[in-house]
């Protein structure tokens, strides 16, 4: 397969989204068809590319010297691209129904489709410069989505998001310049592009560069103390919270950090150094902090957002272990968390859409009233808690085993943090489940008599996601094998 095709799933949605904005559909039906077709085509194109995997890289803009914008597909890109391509269409169909009550759908879907292209661009980036380009584009493309409702809260959240992201990008830029100065190239190569001969005497400078870049990408990955934008951004429409703030945007941050750690700076330079300890400590703090804050937060969507903060750092903790097992566990949790968290957010969205209730304590007796929604929420909760045999357990096991295998005191502390956080997760999610299913004596059915599940357009995504979750839970072996190859540098 010609590698020029790599441009298709990046460019097409960008054009389609822009066209959608220009055409400004009057009829809902026409818009839905247009959006559905563009999203499905993009997803199909991306998945086809993942399957046929062209080997070469495709340079679409050469700036001369060692600077070029190029696309390439390797094992890690496949995982990320496949993940978003599977989840994007599901979220799109959910949004068709959900966005009815938010209004201004033309604007929303235009940016929604464009973001898809940008995310695929991140997945396919062949070097740091291209990644940087799409990373910046991602901030700009998602800003209108965060500020969608344009009320004071949304504007505040949007501003906060922009501020955090831009500051992060500045840090990334510093790291990139260092890489340009000392590295053999900006390309992503497993093991890194900083051979010992080129950086002799400047090791600590490079490590500093790594930590700064980590923090820069860490903004999107919501690493403490740069997580602040994420809970605020939960004012965005729920499909945005679900897809962007649990999967695409935040995992783009994680993805970038994996690229940075394993493919640019290389684990050789970092393993055992103060740089590794610093970033690992940050992830451990974030794991505990996120879970604790989630427990303290009565607003359901914000609680889930804090849960995301914590879970992203599960992945990053695996990544910062800088071992094969650690990266495998991290990737596993990346996939599992994506499916689980999108389900949880969709459930919160359904509740919001049908009843306008946002707080955990308002959900008494919802188990009977919204069986599909709460059923999906419960299964996803159990999975996130890591109750075997559901998905979260497998990833937690892989991460814990990897941490123990690494054997440093900090890694041990991380394994302990995983355990404590799992307990907190159980507390903050079971609270909701218990409220929904065991309202207790004296609960009156009248309070939920108008509450019903949403229509098929919103229910089908739940069924699909739960089936996907069960499949991943019971047969993680192929995934584990695949991630093992990626982490081992074979793919």
């Amino acid at each position, binding site marked *: 397969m010609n590698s020029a095709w790599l441009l298709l799933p990046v460019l097409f949605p960008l054009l389609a989204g822009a066209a959608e904005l220009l055409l400004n559909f009057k009829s809902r039906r026409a818009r839905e068809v247009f959006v559905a077709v563009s999203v499905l085509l993009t997803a199909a194109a991306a998945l086809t590319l993942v399957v046929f995997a062209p080997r070469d890289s495709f340079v679409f803009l050469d700036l001369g010297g060692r600077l070029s914008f190029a696309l390439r597909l390797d094992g890690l890109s496949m995982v990320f691209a496949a993940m978003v391509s599977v989840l994007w269409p599901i979220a799109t169909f959910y949004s068709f129904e959900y966005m009815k009550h938010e209004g201004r759908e033309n604007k929303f879907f235009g940016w929604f489709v464009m973001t898809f292209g940008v995310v695929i661009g991140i997945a396919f980036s062949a070097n740091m410069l291209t990644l940087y380009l799409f990373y910046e584009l991602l901030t700009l493309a998602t800003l209108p989505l965060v500020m969608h409702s344009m009320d004071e809260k949304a504007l*505040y959240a949007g501003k906060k998001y922009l*501020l955090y992201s831009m500051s992060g990008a500045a840090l990334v830029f510093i790291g990139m310049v260092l890489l340009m100065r000392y590295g053999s190239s900006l390309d992503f190569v497993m093991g890194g592009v900083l051979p010992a001969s080129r950086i002799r005497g400047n090791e600590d400078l490079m490590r500093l560069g790594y930590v700064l870049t980590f923090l820069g990408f860490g903004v999107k990955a919501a690493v403490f103390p740069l997580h602040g934008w994420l*809970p605020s951004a939960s004012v965005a429409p729920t499909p945005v919270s679900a897809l962007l703030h649990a999967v695409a945007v935040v995992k783009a941050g994680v993805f970038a950090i994996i690229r940075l750690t394993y493919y640019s700076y290389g684990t050789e330079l970092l393993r055992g150094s103060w740089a590794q300890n610093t970033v690992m400590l940050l992830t451990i703090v974030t794991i505990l902090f996120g879970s604790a*804050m989630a427990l303290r937060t009565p607003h359901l969507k914000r609680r889930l957002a804090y849960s995301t903060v914590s879970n992203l750092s599960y992945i990053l903790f695996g990544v910062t272990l800088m071992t094969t097992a650690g990266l495998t566990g991290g990737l596993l949790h990346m996939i599992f968390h994506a499916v689980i968290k999108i389900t949880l957010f969709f459930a919160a969205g359904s509740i919001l859409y049908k009843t306008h209730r946002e707080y955990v304590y308002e959900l008494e007796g919802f188990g009977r009233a919204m069986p599909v929604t709460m059923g999906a929420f419960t299964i996803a909760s159990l999975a996130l808690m890591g109750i075997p*045999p559901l998905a979260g357990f497998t990833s937690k096991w892989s991460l*814990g085993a990897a941490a123990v295998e690494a054997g440093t005191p900090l890694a041990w502390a991380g394994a302990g943090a995983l355990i404590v956080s799992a*307990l907190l997760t159980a507390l903050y999610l079971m609270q909701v489940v218990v409220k929904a299913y*065991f*309202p207790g004596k004296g609960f009156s059915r009248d309070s939920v008599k108008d509450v019903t599940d949403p229509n098929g357009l919103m229910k089908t995504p739940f069924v699909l996601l739960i089936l996907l979750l069960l499949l991943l839970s019971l047969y993680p072996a192929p995934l584990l094998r695949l991630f093992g190859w990626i982490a081992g540098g074979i793919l």
Partner: protein
Amino acid sequence: MGKFLLAFLVFFPFAAALAGYLTGRRSKAGRDALVQASCLLELLAALGLAGSLGASFSWEGFCGLGLHFAADGFRLTMAVLTAFIWLLTTISSKEYFAAAHNRNRYYLFLLMTLGSTMGIFLSSDLYTTFVFFEVMSFTSWVMVAQEETPDAKKASGTYLGVAVLGGLVTLMGLFLLYSRTGTLEMSALTGLAAQTADKGPLYAAGVLILVGFGVKAGMYPLHIWLPDSYVAAPAPATALLSAVLSKAGVFGILAVSCNIFLHDAPWGDLILVLAVLTMVTGAVLAVFSANLKRTLACSSMSQIGFILVGVAMQCLLGEENALAVGGSMLHLLNHSLIKTALFMAAGVVFLNLGTFDLNRLRGFGRKKPLLMFVFLMGILGVTGVPLWNGYVSKTLIHESIVEYIAAAGLSAGQAAYYRWVEWLFLISGGLTVAYMTKIFVALFVEKNPTEQQRYDGMKRYVSRPTAVVLAVSAAILPVLGMTPGLTMDSIAGLCRGFMNGEAPAHAVEYFSLTNLKGAAISIAIGAAVYLLLVRPLLMKKQPDGSWAYLDRWPRWLNLEYGLYRPVLLKILPFLGALAARFACSLVDWAVAGLRALLFWKAPEKVEPPTDDYFGVYPERPHPHTISNSLAYSLLLFGIGLSITLLYLLFC
């Protein structure tokens, strides 16, 4: 065939649970029949497993490490026992829940719990054990919460909290063990402690794993959930909790003690201390209780202590542990059977009176021969009266302690220490006699001051199926007790392989004079405690001349409310919130400071958080939000660029 049976035993109940749930939405009677038939089928399959001992079944890749099951004598016994008790309680559930809500939910989780319990008992590696252990914790939690009363909600909350906490600690232990050995296969772990030079991490792993399993077994000091949950759960569920689920915890402890720490004396000493504490605490709590179900619940805890003493003696005795192996196995079996009968009988009492309060149910059992038969058999069994089954197993455990004291190589101090253990063992046996006498006297001897007429008139107090179930469960106990050589020894022999035990040098003379002496001492202590302590101290004369039972257990002695809840729910969250608040504010203050600096304005007034999470916001959003943010971003961008430029110029 064996492969198929193993898979069937574990996974069929899950399928049946779903089928039962769906049927139950159409027809209640159809659902009841389906559930009972499933339990019967499960029992037949468990019996069928006897034909294929040595079989194993694995599902590679499941959850990463895969599931592994095996069939041997011990697992067969546990599977048959589980399926049998499940069948009995399911039959009696029908009457118990005749008027209840949410029955469909109950049966759904009942069968799922059966599947997960089977998964635990048939597992051949600790990973599989753990997977099903966690599933069991959650499915059985719904059974505890079934009644949805405030008490049930509170008790089930504690149950779940402790179970989750225990499960996670165990997981940590498994991480540690796995990192040392690279396998969790039980047979591959046999004798590991003996072969390892650096035992520290191994003990750490062992203790961590012990926590999770100890929670389910009700081991001191992790027993706090047990009395309340047993009381709050519906009676058939309590029977299962006590008879089967607690044994899942014991199974885990056995799997660790008999494999990793095979014949390891320090481990044995640790288990012994915990076991004795469990045994004594449970017995004392039971004596103080004035509630039928609570007495039985605390009794369960105490009996688990007896079993664990046996487990500890296995480790201590080393190669000569035949008595301890037999004793712990048989006491496990006996306690399951006895408590099934007793809890179901207690359920019958509750169904008629709606209370477990000893003062109110006094005299209910008079002129009810079946009920009296069931209670009497259970009580004689659990107190260890010769000719009933409890006697056999208690004798074996007692003898194993005596044997260890007599063994060569103990210093005088050590011998004295273990003699104390022996006395505590006998005293706990005595307390068992005392609290069981207390409930027997209350139910069947004393008259109710107000309601006796009405109670005597209740002739149809139990339905026929339940009556049959009760009679069967009670009749087994003396049959086993009178034929120890024939029945009990062969069961013990069947189970020896799992515990890597040795065969006894010669058959045990159960009814010899020395062995009878132990039982006699216990019964004498029990009689003394009942007459000298229970009646004078725990009862009080009422104005109308009758005597009432009092609950004199001081509240501050409750570990849950005195220690765990304050620490876990008040002190730790306070510290956590303080730290989180500090951490959060730190960043927000920095941002606020930066804004003030960069926007060339007086600092805005920042008010404390009114929001639900700790965020510090300016009082009003800034009027020109967007332009400012863009400007700010560009500024930062520019700073970044110029730093880089400077760096490139001068470095």
